[in-house]
């Protein structure tokens, strides 16, 4: 009776390891916030695409400390790893986190990174690497992940086949708020794996009695009781198994298996009357469930041993009918999968908008195959394959949408080119003229500014003479030279000197007023030049924008088109291969279930005849008496 009590261990090991995306406190980078917005909705492709671009841009900056992402870069690197992991890109997932580990960061950040890296390795089943990453944790550990680290360490040891090493860690986690229930069960498993059967049973007993109203912890409690019961069944301690199996909640996820095992435990101690109770409940449950099907056969068997052959015959008959119906369903399902309907249903978008899409898929009348695929859907490899198929279908949809966009971009660029190209030569001619005038005016403006600045440090009144005064001054200087040969007290020379003195007097006395006026005029000119410069810059930008609106797109669009076409071909190929594989595995599973039901049917048919015979004989005996 190898019911593999440890087979669900992996499920528990993975539980609670996936941390949520980082909630940024005092968000400073909107694009990081946008990535979180998508991640919080489970849209990891969109989240990754935005955050990856943002982080790459940040890494390429000369002065990253001026970028808003600088405040969140550690969180962003972590989130990148998280999103990659959640988008099932394990190969890339550790990259960003390793970058944090190798950077000069404080203990808290480095230890957080080491933990996240260990978690990724664990999920990829790289146990040695996971332990290595955990061993890098040193110094101050963030309080919020202290228990997470230890729980992960214990699980790695368990998965590595070193249960002894995990025992002490799990013992210390018994009072953990987040992991107490899981640690309690896992400790029982650790004892069991390390050969301490009695300790394991005691621990599972403790875990099976825990008081809680948390649904996850209740499931763990059920699981502990089921495993404890199964351990006793395996060693044929049937009476000891029964209390544990009875403790499993009748409406919990492990109830079917517990009811079935409880029935067999009672039958094995020749208590068929007791066995009838759990099997009667189970036989009325979902007819596709393995345990329920087995109970349909076991229940009349129990009645048979109680010599209630008439009722046994009735139940065998019901089982036979039920198996027939289920075999028909399975045949339909196998046929449906062969016709490709399974994959068609999987990619139906309206189904997958619901987080319980697998359940909804099951409810669709045109998709019978999922009735029997629930166990398969729960297996890691099949789920990975299924999820990959769905991801590929999503990627394909995106590519198809993008490909339609490329033609539109080509049209848009062509329209802009047709519009601008004829206009630009004339505009450029006018612009060149404007440009040369603008340059000249700029030079003149600069010269005036320099003159004003020079005058502030070295006053030169003659520089502020009016043009008329400058002409008079030049004429007087000319006359002065001509009169140089005359007697020094000649009336002409005195007159020239007098006139020059008058002019210099005026320039000197009015110098400050003239400088103030010059400065005011220059300020007005500054404003006018600034306005002209703004208009000039705006013109240049608009002119550049006109060119940029249609130039430089051909190659990128062509490159994108080629890349998209190549990606589409690869996706089609991968979808076909993945799809065929899923169909094959599904058909194999359904065929196995059909064979099992056919075998059950044979047994039921034989037992039905046998029960009728016995019932008839019993009746004959009664009549004879």
């Amino acid at each position, binding site marked *: *009776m190898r019911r593999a009590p440890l087979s669900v261990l992996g499920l528990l090991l993975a539980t609670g390891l996936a941390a949520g*995306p980082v*909630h940024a*406190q005092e*968000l400073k980078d*909107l694009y990081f*916030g*946008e990535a*979180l*917005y*998508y*991640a*919080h*909705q489970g849209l990891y*492709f969109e989240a990754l695409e935005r955050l*990856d671009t943002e982080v790459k841009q940040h890494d390429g900056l000369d002065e990253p400390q001026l970028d808003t992402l600088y405040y969140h870069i550690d969180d962003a690197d972590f989130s990148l790893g998280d999103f990659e992991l959640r988008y*099932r*890109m394990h*190969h*890339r997932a550790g990259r960003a986190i390793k970058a944090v580990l190798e950077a000069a960061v404080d203990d808290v950040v480095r230890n957080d990174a080491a933990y996240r890296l260990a978690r990724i390795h664990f999920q990829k089943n790289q146990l040695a690497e996971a332990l290595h990453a955990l061993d890098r944790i040193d110094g101050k550990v963030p309080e919020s992940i202290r228990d997470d680290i230890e729980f992960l360490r214990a699980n790695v040891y368990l998965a590595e086949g070193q249960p002894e090493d995990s025992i002490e860690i799990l013992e210390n986690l018994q009072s953990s708020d987040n992991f107490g229930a899981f640690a309690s069960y896992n400790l029982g498993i650790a004892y069991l794996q390390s050969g301490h059967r009695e300790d394991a049973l005691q621990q599972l007993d403790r875990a099976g009695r825990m008081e809680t109203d948390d649904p996850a912890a209740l499931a763990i409690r059920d699981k502990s009781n089921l495993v404890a019961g199964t351990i006793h069944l395996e060693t044929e301690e049937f009476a000891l198994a029964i209390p544990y199996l009875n403790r499993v909640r009748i409406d919990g996820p492990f109830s079917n298996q517990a009811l079935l095992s409880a029935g*067999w435990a009672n*039958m*094995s101690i*020749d208590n*068929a009357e007791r066995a009838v109770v759990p099997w009667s409940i189970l036989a009325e449950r979902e007819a596709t469930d393995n345990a329920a099907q*087995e109970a349909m*056969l*076991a229940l009349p068997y129990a009645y048979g*041993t109680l010599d209630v052959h008439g009722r046994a015959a009735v139940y065998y008959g019901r089982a036979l009918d039920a198996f027939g119906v289920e075999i028909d369903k399975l045949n339909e399902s196998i046929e449906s999968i062969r016709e490709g309907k399974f994959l068609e249903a999987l990619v139906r978008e309206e189904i997958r908008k619901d987080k319980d899409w697998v359940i909804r898929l099951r409810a669709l009348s045109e998709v019978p195959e999922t009735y029997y695929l629930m166990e398969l859907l729960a*297996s890691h*490899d*099949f789920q*990975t394959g299924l999820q*990959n198929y769905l*991801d*590929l279908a999503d*990627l394909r949809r*995106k*590519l198809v949408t*993008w490909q339609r*966009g490329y033609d539109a*971009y080509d049209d848009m*660029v062509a329209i802009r080119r047709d519009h601008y190209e004829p206009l630009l030569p004339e505009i450029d001619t006018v612009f060149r003229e404007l440009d040369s005038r603008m340059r000249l005016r700029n030079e003149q403006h600069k010269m005036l500014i320099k003159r004003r600045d020079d005058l502030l440090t070295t006053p030169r009144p003659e520089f502020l003479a009016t043009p008329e005064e400058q002409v008079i001054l030049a004429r007087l200087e000319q006359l002065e030279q001509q009169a140089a040969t005359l007697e020094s007290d000649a009336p002409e020379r005195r007159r020239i000197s007098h006139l020059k003195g008058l002019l210099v007097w005026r320039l000197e006395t009015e110098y400050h007023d003239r400088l103030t006026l010059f400065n005011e005029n220059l300020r007005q000119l500054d404003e006018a030049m600034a306005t002209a410069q703004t208009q000039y*810059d705006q013109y240049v*930008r608009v002119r550049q*924008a006109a060119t940029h*609106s249609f130039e430089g797109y051909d190659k990128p669009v062509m490159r*994108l088109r080629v*890349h*998209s076409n190549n*990606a589409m071909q*690869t996706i089609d190929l*991968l979808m076909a291969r993945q799809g065929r594989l899923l169909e094959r*595995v599904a058909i*194999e*599973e359904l065929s*196995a*279930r059909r064979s*099992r039901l056919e*075998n059950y049917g044979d047994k039921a048919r034989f037992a039905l005849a046998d029960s009728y015979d016995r019932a008839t004989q019993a009746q004959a005996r009664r009549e004879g008496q």
Partner: protein
Amino acid sequence: MSKCRSAALLALTTIFLAGTAVAQDLAGANMKSLDGQVQEIKSDVLDISSELRNLEERLLYPSGTQLAIFVAVEEQEDFRLDAVQIEIDGELATHHIYSFNELEALQKGGVQKAYTGNVVTGSHELRVTVIGKTDGGKDFSSSGTFAFAKGVKPKTLGITLAEPGLGSDGIQVGDW
């Protein structure tokens, strides 16, 4: 006899489960091999998506006229946001009705890029209208009008929403 019978039934089950397990192991190996290839194509398509986004931004929203408006919800806010309408200079820019998932994402700290468009440089008016339900279950609709200036660089505005209270419409707009 009972033990023999139960053992027979259980053995039957075990054999079938084992048979399925072998088939699944083989399929599992193939699935793992495909998984690596799927991861590679995901990486390729992410690169295409990133390049396409850059191209679209250049082509449709040149930096000189680009305006992006983001919406966030104030921390610790539990009001139900039903819809946000944004008008720029009296013209409807966008109207978004929030799903449960979107609202939850905002409440967890996510920021929604609600609008990307083009406006000319200069002064503009932004009108934000918010429709929702208060934490106490009362319907509300509040609006706010804000002025902003568009320069030559891309403009990014952030709208932060809170439940309207006394003297406050619960809408803040700022440069980001």
